[in-house]
């Protein structure tokens, strides 16, 4: 860069600095712009009725209550399945083994899983849960698909949280004659809980915002879910359909605002917890 220009190093530094400043401003402004547009157009749509009434007339009228309920159910199932698996994996990797071929394979598996696009999870969930296991388009199929999707996130954050527990805690526990499992459940896990919770909250955010994997597994029926096997439309799927098919822009903005606000709150809480419990210790 600037090799042919023959600028004085100091001038070059000034030029580069201004350029970087500009680029950073563009990046930040674009991202903030998105937030502002959604909130500016969406907040006026929000009121008690919007949050407590079911959608009517394909979403043109009424609120989004059933989609909020569906989102919560789906997320709950996803975490119910993914949390024990993820935390168990993290405990095994950190407390029960040393670096070996197996741990490398497990970590590689988790990393690959994290990189798989959500549409592939959608295809997979459709074939396995909807078709082969005959769960149909349902809360259960959607929740299980999401569980697989968030698993790597929970593994990674739990691993970091457990690693951040000072080794001295374990030594004291062992020296008192505890077994490894006693040490893990009574000493390590209690002090790693905030970090583990962070990963869980992060996964809640991802589940709420997911569309591609959910639309083919939970379906898009616009009604209140009554059982694990009812097909239902989550907030993000509802928003997608409202916006893509131009059903109602005001309702789309309103739904987007609820989505974005919940995710921002979740991410801010996560960030706060991370700063407090993970980064500080490590």
């Amino acid at each position: 860069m600037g090799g042919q220009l023959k600028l004085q190093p100091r001038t070059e530094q000034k030029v580069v600095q201004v350029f970087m400043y500009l680029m950073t401003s563009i990046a930040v402004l674009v991202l903030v712009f998105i937030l502002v547009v959604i909130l500016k157009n969406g907040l006026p749509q929000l009121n008690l009725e919007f949050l407590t009434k079911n959608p009517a007339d394909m979403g043109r009228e009424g609120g989004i209550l059933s989609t909020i309920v569906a989102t919560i159910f789906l997320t709950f199932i996803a975490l119910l399945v993914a949390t024990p698996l993820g935390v168990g994996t993290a405990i095994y990797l950190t407390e029960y083994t040393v670096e070996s071929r197996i741990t490398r394979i497990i970590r590689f598996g988790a990393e690959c899983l994290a990189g798989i696009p959500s549409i592939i999870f959608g295809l997979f969930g459709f074939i396995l849960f909807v078709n082969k296991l005959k769960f149909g388009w349902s809360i259960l199929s959607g929740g299980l698909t999401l569980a697989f999707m968030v698993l790597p996130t929970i593994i990674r954050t739990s691993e970091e949280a457990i690693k951040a527990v000072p080794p001295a805690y374990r030594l004291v526990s062992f020296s008192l004659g505890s077994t490894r499992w006693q040490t893990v459940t009574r000493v390590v896990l209690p002090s790693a809980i905030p970090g583990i919770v962070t990963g869980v909250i992060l996964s809640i955010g991802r589940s709420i915002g997911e569309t591609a994997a959910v639309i083919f597994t939970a379906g898009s029926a616009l009604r209140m879910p009554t059982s694990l096997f009812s097909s239902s439309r989550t907030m993000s799927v509802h928003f997608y359909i409202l916006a893509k098919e131009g059903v109602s822009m005001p309702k789309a903005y309103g739904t987007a605002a609820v989505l974005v606000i919940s995710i921002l709150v979740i991410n801010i809480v996560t960030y706060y917890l991370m700063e407090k419990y993970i980064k500080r210790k490590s």
Partner: protein
Amino acid sequence: MTRLEKNDRLVRLGLLMIALSAISVLAIITLFIFEQGTPIMFRYGFKSFLLGQDWYPSEKSFGLLPMIVGSLMVTFGALIIGVPLGLASAIFLTEFSHRRLTRILKPVIELLAGIPSVVYGFIGLMFLVPFIRDNFGGPGLSVLAASLILGIMILPTVISIAIDSIRAVPDSYREGSIALGATRWQTVRMVVLPAARSGIIAGIILGMGRAIGETMAVIMVAGNAADIPGSILAPVRTLTSNIALEMAYASGEHREALFATGVILFIIIMILNTIANVTSTRQRKK
């Protein structure tokens, strides 16, 4: 062996089973996608899938070339936009800005990584698409619109990984360079960036994976015509949108062909993941 020790063995075994869940999930996904997607590829021949230019599922014509080219074009476009912006921001935030500014901006950027992709797509549809249509011509729904939206979407990934790997460069490197009379920028360009290179590349590859795998945002702004785009203002359909657009009503061979689309996407992503994994391990080893 005491009872407690025996229990401990059981626990270890149980945990190992759980720990194998992640890799088993990966294996099951691979198995199902390939089981559904590859038979039709064998039946019609790989060549007709990879190089066929016509996608008319109702006439049993399953050429995926337009979608493969489409995915590569928008991903490349996303990198052209996202990488310079992301790298410059990362360098600025680590090496040039006030520490206080970085403390505010880094979390802001990371928070924005959580915005759902449908929201990005919606903003693109409402603002970017009309803007392109009015100022550059064409339908607005285009390669350009998809590239811009994807470029923005990969920013948080590229920025935060680049920041982490630039921060991982020991300060003694910088001090040595400054002591030799180099300016800050010279230090960054000749010392810091080369040392952080593999981490930065891993970040870019992960961003690339995110761009190529993105579905909802792309569907909303790309126009989705199944033809090889003639210009960046022409509409485009990616591998991901091909699946998402037709899955709802596809059956029989048509559905199998969509799974075949998934197989190709899956292979591309796994290659990218492996490269990213190898590059970042290399930096960690250093």
